[in-house]
């Protein structure tokens, strides 16, 4: 999905691996930070610092993704664009539509659900676009 298959250029593969590295680092820090903050072992400025470190690593991942798209082969860029569009559209559609279902008694979604829907929408969009251009 991020330039790791055989059909992409070497730059795509290197940048794809960079994103995976940042993503794994971000996921690991979120897990550790969640465990630490939820356990109430730290508070005040230290808690803010832990949250800020997570966000900073996330920004690093965002920068790596921006670089990947900027340097990508043009078809890869097109596929990523379609994936982003699908993910964003699905996220907006699901979250706004769900607010109506909440009036009808559906369970209330938290903010992270929108992000999760966007991520899965993005993955689905990239897979669909990759298949379309195969």
């Amino acid at each position, binding site marked *: 999905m991020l330039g790791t298959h*055989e*059909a*992409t*250029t070497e730059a795509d593969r290197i940048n794809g691996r960079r994103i995976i590295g940042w993503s794994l680092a971000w996921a690991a820090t979120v897990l550790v930070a969640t465990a630490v903050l939820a356990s109430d072992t730290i508070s005040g400025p230290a808690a803010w610092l832990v949250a800020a470190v997570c966000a900073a690593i996330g920004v690093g991942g965002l920068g790596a993704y921006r670089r990947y798209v900027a340097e990508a*082969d*043009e*078809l890869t860029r*097109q596929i990523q664009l379609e994936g982003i569009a699908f993910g964003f559209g699905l996220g907006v559609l699901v979250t706004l539509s769900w607010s109506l279902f909440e009036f009808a008694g559906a369970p209330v979604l938290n903010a992270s659900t929108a992000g999760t829907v966007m991520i899965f929408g993005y993955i689905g969009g990239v897979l669909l676009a990759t298949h379309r*251009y*195969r």
Partner: protein
Amino acid sequence: MKNRLRVLRAEHDLTQAQLASQLEVSRQTVNAIEVGKYDPSLPLAFKIAEVFSQKIEDIFDPA
């Protein structure tokens, strides 16, 4: 958009991977252009024309 890329590539005895390497794109991009699923950008179309020493309009047919 129709094109003669596959024919030209065969005439020059190039594989998709070799042409992709010359054009600095992925093999998937070359394949998608050949089968008409993807229209290349103008810079890439110029590059393709340059590789085969042809005019863009002799390779790509917008009809």
